[in-house]
């Protein structure tokens, strides 16, 4: 098996426990990137977030209890970082959430393949709470218990958020009453049409309404 120079660098010569920790961090980077991508919806923002998480994790490594779930610990740090970054951004500039959601990831920043873009876009319409619960349990393979620890809420709360998120996604994707009668767009127009549908679904700027909205 070929070991990349970077990996060899981290796996060699450190016998003080930090080396092991770093090796484990290294192995979990792909999952940090995936979780970050699903939270931010953008590649660049996600990698910045994942890197901030690594630094934070390294600085707080003494608080990690060996033998516990490092992945869940890292995801908790990443999630905290995500919300605190965003709060800071909100303080610095008034943020038009609706307008932000209308901005398609341009060019190279296109996150998901065209085939998946409708699900990816529909995810952005969910509330943060529903989105993170659904990603952790539905995509990341976390137990409800671990997801609850990461999101700092009760297990039952995670369960109901996941259930509501699934329901909401279907309604968004498959046409709630709002979409009945909207014809399936022709191939090339799919993305544009979905964005238009989401715009129609999104209530006028009134804060955190995404997931609480119950179409009919």
């Amino acid at each position, binding site marked *: 098996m070929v070991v*990349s120079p*970077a990996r060899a*660098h*981290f796996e060699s010569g450190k016998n*003080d*426990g*930090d080396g092991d920790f*770093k090796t484990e*961090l*290294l192995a979990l*980077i*792909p*999952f940090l*990137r*995936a*979780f970050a*991508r*699903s939270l931010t919806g953008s590649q660049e923002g*996600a*990698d910045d977030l*994942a*890197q901030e998480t*690594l*630094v934070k994790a*390294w600085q707080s490594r003494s608080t990690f209890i060996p033998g516990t779930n490092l992945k869940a610990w890292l995801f908790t740090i990443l999630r905290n970082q995500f919300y605190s970054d965003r709060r800071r951004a909100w303080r610095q500039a008034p943020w038009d959430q609706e307008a932000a959601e209308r901005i398609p990831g341009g060019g190279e920043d296109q996150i*998901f*393949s065209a085939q*998946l873009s409708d*699900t*990816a876009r529909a*995810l952005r319409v969910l509330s943060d709470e529903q989105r993170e619960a*659904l*990603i952790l349990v*539905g*995509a*990341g393979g976390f137990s409800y218990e671990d997801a609850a620890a990461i999101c700092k809420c009760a297990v039952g709360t995670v369960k109901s958020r996941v259930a509501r998120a*699934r329901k909401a*996604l*279907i309604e968004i*994707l*498959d046409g709630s009453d709002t979409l*009945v009668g909207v014809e399936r767009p022709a191939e090339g127009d799919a993305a544009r049409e979905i964005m238009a549908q989401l715009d129609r679904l999104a209530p006028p700027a009134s804060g955190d309404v995404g997931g609480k909205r119950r179409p009919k």
Partner: protein
Amino acid sequence: MSNEEKPNEKSRAIRARQRAIGRELRRMYDDVAQEPVPDDFMDLLRRIDDAEDARPGKKVS
């Protein structure tokens, strides 16, 4: 129209759709997780390492 569908068919269709959406979510996540880790990350870890080595009173446990 679709409003006339029988409840059974409808719930079966919903379950099928749930599974399909679940697969798409996992694929989106796995696609990212399977990307090669960008060099930035390696550089970052290397910098952490170097900073550690450079620290005079480095604790050895």
